[in-house]
């Protein structure tokens, strides 16, 4: 009788569980970081003068270092299917973002919508990309 169950315990199962735990820990930390950055971007008053110039430069330098490290760190916990799905989700997010920005600009030029909001577009792109990635991973 063939056993096609997905719960049998063995060396491979233990290794897989350890891998998944590491992946979810890193994913949770990354999502928390992204939510924190999003909240900081949207909180309080907006526009020029919200940050001291030196603080703004320090924040950009910190982000320049942290962002690629976080991407690399999360990438290392993914297998090839997850990396493939991440590429597909990123491509979907980019196309959705370009489409939304173009439509919003056209509506703005027609006097039908306020000026496009860069932060809103960025956060919406991130949310769409994450949702698409989750869908692809579930389908796998």
């Amino acid at each position, binding site marked *: 009788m063939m056993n096609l169950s997905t719960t049998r315990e063995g060396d*491979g199962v*233990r*290794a*897989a*569980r350890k891998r998944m735990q590491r992946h979810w820990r890193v994913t949770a930390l990354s999502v928390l970081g992204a939510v924190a950055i999003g909240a900081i971007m949207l909180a309080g008053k907006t526009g020029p003068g919200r940050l001291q110039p030196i603080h703004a430069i320090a924040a950009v330098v910190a982000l320049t270092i942290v962002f690629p490290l976080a991407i690399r760190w999360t990438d290392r916990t993914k*297998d090839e299917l*997850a990396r*493939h799905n991440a590429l597909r989700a990123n491509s979907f997010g980019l196309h959705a973002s370009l489409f939304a920005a173009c439509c919003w600009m056209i509506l703005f030029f027609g006097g039908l919508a306020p000026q496009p909001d860069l932060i809103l577009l960025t956060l919406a792109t991130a949310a769409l990309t994450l949702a698409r990635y989750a869908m692809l991973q579930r389908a796998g």
Partner: protein
Amino acid sequence: MKNRLKLLRAERDWSQLELGGRLGVSRQAVNAIETGKHDPSLPLAFRIARLFDLRIEEIFDDEPIHDA
């Protein structure tokens, strides 16, 4: 791409999670390969072949899977 992965796994009484752990990939990746939704990379195909002590072409067939 057609393959015999599900059969080979069943012969060893391994779950998808067990095979994924031995190959260093997720259960979803094993499922996607078995159902032909994902073609493994060459390094992963070699790892699979080594694990089952077979040649790649004895596991994978380049004929596409057609949905009924």
